[in-house]
Every structure is written in C-alpha cells, then in structure tokens.
C-alpha cells in the first residue's frame, strides 16, 4: 500500500501503521503518511480509479489499506454519491455556479460511512473483532450498520438527548447502544478512557482515528472526478471536529500532488452553528487555537465543543483564503428549507448550517460571480425532523372537489 507510517502532525515522530492515534512524545494527533512515488504513471492511476468499483474503494491507491484494489469488499461500500448542479439555488443567491455534493446518499445516509468503511476495514486488517465509537448520531448509525454487515460486535456511545430518529436508526442494527448522561464531549472523554482499558476494541474515532479520518479525503476525490478531473474554486464544508474539513483539503492536495488535477486547493469555507462555534470564533478573533465551549444548538451532529482538528481547520481556511463562519438556529432552519426548495434535497441540520453559511457568504459578496462553488451536504433530513416541524402549513380537506376548491380558491388554474 502507499501508506508508509503514522506521523505526528506536531513533532513529526513516526510510528508503525498500528492502532495508535496520539503521539506519546507531545500528545499531537497522528496522521497517515504516504509514499506516492509509485503513482508516477498518472494515466494508469486514473484508469485504476475509473475502472474501479462505484464506491470509495476506487481510490484504494490513496487509502491506508493493504492488498490490491478490491473489486468488491464485504461490508457497506460507501461513496460515489451524487454531485448535483444546483442552478436554482445559485440563482436564488445571485451566484454563478453551485454544486451540491449530496452525501446523504450513503448507506446510512451520512458521510460517516466513508470514514467508518476505512476504519472498520483497517480494524479487521489489524485483527480487531469489536467496533466502537463516541458519536453525535450519524457515526452511531454507521458503526452499528458496519458492525452488522461485517459481523463484528459494536458498542456505540451517544449523548442521552440525541434526536430520536438517530437513536432508532442505530438500535435497529442490533448494536450495544449506550446513552450517556452528558454532552458529546463527555461521551468522548468517557470513550477515550474506555479505549485505554479495552485494547481489543477498535474505537473508530479514537484508536483508529488516523485511518478513519482518511476516509473523508474521498469526498474531495469524488468532487474532482465528477467535475471531469477539475477543481472547484471554493468548497463549503460543515465543521464539528474539523476532521472532514481538513481531510477534504488533503484530498485535493494529494490529487494535485500526483498530477491527476491541475491547480490549487480550493478556497475552503468552514460552517459552524453559533451555538457551538469554537472554530468560527477563533477564526474571527485571529487565534490559532480553539477555546472549548458548551454546545447549545439544534445542529447536534456538529455539537463538538472541543474540536480535535480545530487548529488545523483554522490553518487550512487561512491558507486557502477562506473563512469559518457561523449561523444561528433560525438561519439553520431557513438553510434546510432553502436547499429543499431549490434543489429537492432534504438535509439534516448540519446541511442547514452549510447552506446558510453559503447564503451568508453570497450576501456578503465574498463569492465572485465566476466561481464554481461546491457545498458538501453531509447528512439526511429525515434524521432531524424536528428542525422542520411547524415550518410549513398543510391543507386538510374533505374528500370532495368543493372542499379542495375552497382550500385553493384563487390558485387553481383552468
């Protein structure tokens, strides 16, 4: 495989490709390092991708897994989600070209299937038989489902106050579902402690985190491939821990690096909810670190008050001329409606955050008229139905023409 080692992002100390996630010298995060020198024949790399399966395994050359490219793998193959040109949304916002990367079209309806597919596959390669995670909901769905598909035991820890839809869509897979009386950061702390004592468990976002995070790069690969091996000018991505945001940047960087696409990493815009905005707040204040916060927002899938990749998200936004912005709960609800009404895509609250931030950037004049913009919609609206409850009216009528005509008097065409 192209992956060669784990490397500390802070001090550069190298480690073997095992179930490690923290540098024991400085506590910095470990990241997978690659040697792409054997990918010098760009045409061959492109052909391997194009001839690969319709899922993230087509990018096997860029993922930290052993063996040759699989035609199929057991499990729940993720990715190859639609990239949809959203002309009506663009027109509404006065923009030139907007595309929606709809990652709700994954097996458990969020981008988390990408990261869990990689983490679970790597976990099996390393000999684990149990999956686990600390989740704000989407990850819970995905880990439970992957455990079922792969025949691995799973333990899913979530905040006790999670949306009912996300709880039900986790428990159905037959996982060990643990509702923790606390917020996500409490769940994460507990899981970090548990992972230290249960070394035979693969916590996808703790001891498997370096592999897990790599799965998010496939969002960038797909965008580039779906645009005909071209780069967008700007990408708007929601930020919780900041991992998706930074790995999308890394994905573009890698494709540029091996020569699959020409140009620069797009302008990267991060999107947070005002009720949990440690990264946006740090961006605004010009800081290079995030002060943790206690989340209070309807965007529960983004409610991480202590974002692990916050500093790197800040670096990426600044290095690409982007920004990290925040929107409040009312704007989030309006964002969900805006996307639904102009594209036919119903997203969860995180997608409302992303769409609302796009709107905010457009209204501020931050986006040029010739820009090609991609927004990354990470999850499905059916998982957060409360966010749209009472946001529209339905017409209740008797089963008669008269009653129907009465309800629509004046709006019925001859």
């Amino acid at each position, binding site marked *: 495989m192209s992956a060669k080692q784990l490397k500390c992002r*802070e001090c550069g100390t190298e480690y073997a490709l095992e179930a490690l*996630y*923290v*540098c*024991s*010298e*400085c*506590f*910095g*995060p470990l990241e997978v390092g690659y040697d792409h020198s054997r990918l010098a024949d760009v045409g061959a790399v492109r052909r391997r991708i194009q001839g690969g399966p319709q899922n993230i395994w087509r990018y096997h050359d860029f993922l930290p897994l052993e063996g040759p490219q699989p035609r199929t793998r057991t499990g729940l193959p993720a990715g190859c989600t639609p990239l949809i040109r959203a002309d009506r949304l663009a027109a509404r916002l006065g923009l030139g070209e907007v595309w929606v990367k709809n990652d709700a079209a994954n097996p458990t309806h969020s981008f988390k299937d990408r990261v869990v597919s990689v983490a679970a596959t790597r976990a099996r390669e390393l000999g684990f038989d149990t999956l686990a995670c*600390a989740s704000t909901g989407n990850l819970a769905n995905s880990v439970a489902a992957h455990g079922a598909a792969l025949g691995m035991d799973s333990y899913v820890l979530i905040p006790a106050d999670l949306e009912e839809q996300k709880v039900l869509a986790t428990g159905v897979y037959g996982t060990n579902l643990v509702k923790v009386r606390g917020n*996500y*950061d*409490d769940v*994460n*702390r507990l*899981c*970090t*402690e548990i*992972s*230290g004592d249960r*070394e035979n468990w693969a*916590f996808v*976002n*703790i001891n498997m*985190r370096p592999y897990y995070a790599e799965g998010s790069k496939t969002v960038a690969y797909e965008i580039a491939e779906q645009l005909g091996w071209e780069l967008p000018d700007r990408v708007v991505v929601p930020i*919780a*821990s*900041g*991992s*998706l945001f930074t790995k999308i940047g890394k994905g573009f960087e890698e494709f540029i690096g091996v020569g699959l696409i020409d140009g620069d990493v797009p302008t990267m815009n991060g999107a947070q909810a005002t009720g949990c905005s440690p990264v946006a707040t740090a961006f605004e204040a010009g800081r290079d*670190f995030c*002060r*943790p916060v*206690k989340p209070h927002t309807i965007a529960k899938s983004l409610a*991480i008050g*202590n*974002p*692990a*990749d916050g*500093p790197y998200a800040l670096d990426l936004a600044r290095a690409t001329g982007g920004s990290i912005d925040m929107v409040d709960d009312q704007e989030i609800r309006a964002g969900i409606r805006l996307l639904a009404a102009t594209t036919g895509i119903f997203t969860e609250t995180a997608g409302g955050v992303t769409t609302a931030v796009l709107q905010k950037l457009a209204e501020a004049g931050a986006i040029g008229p010739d820009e090609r913009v991609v927004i990354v919609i990470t999850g499905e609206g059916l998982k957060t139905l409360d966010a749209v409850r009472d946001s529209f009216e339905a017409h209740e009528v008797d089963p008669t023409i008269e009653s129907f005509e009465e309800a629509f008097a004046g709006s019925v065409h001859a």
Partner: protein
Amino acid sequence: MAITVKLPTQLREAVGGAASVQAEGATVGEALESVFTTHGELRDRLYQNGDLRRFVNVYVGGEDIRFLDGLETEVPDGAELTILPAVAGG
C-alpha cells in the same frame, strides 16, 4: 492531601506501567508539580512553555479544567484528576 492522577495509556510506561499515581497539592498545577518531582520526564510531555500542551486535556471531577480555572483550579482532598489526549472524536 492525597489526589489520584489518572494517566492515559500513552504515559503509563513512563511511570512503570501504573494507570494512576498519587499527588499532593491544592491546585491542578501543584498536583502536577508533585507528580513531576518523582516522574520528571512527564513534564515535557505534558507541558510546553510552562503551560499545558494544546492537545492535553485535564479533568477534575469530569470537568475540563479550561472551563474552570485552568492550572489554578482547586483540587479537593481525595479528588481524582484525569489526564487524556485531546485528539479523539469527531
């Protein structure tokens, strides 16, 4: 004034494999100093320029000390202080 300091797996080797060590002191900073007197090499792994490294989380009674008074946070007798890596999750 005995305080129990729970260590993450990444630091256990440095203290001979123990999952926790005993400490003394009225604040988080003092308690950690007392740990450093017997386990000096932990200082550089937890501290940078006199403060906690940015990827180190310390909790008193389950609460992140950055929501309390940082290293000045008071630690009651018999309390448990937990050190954990910050890079998990998401």
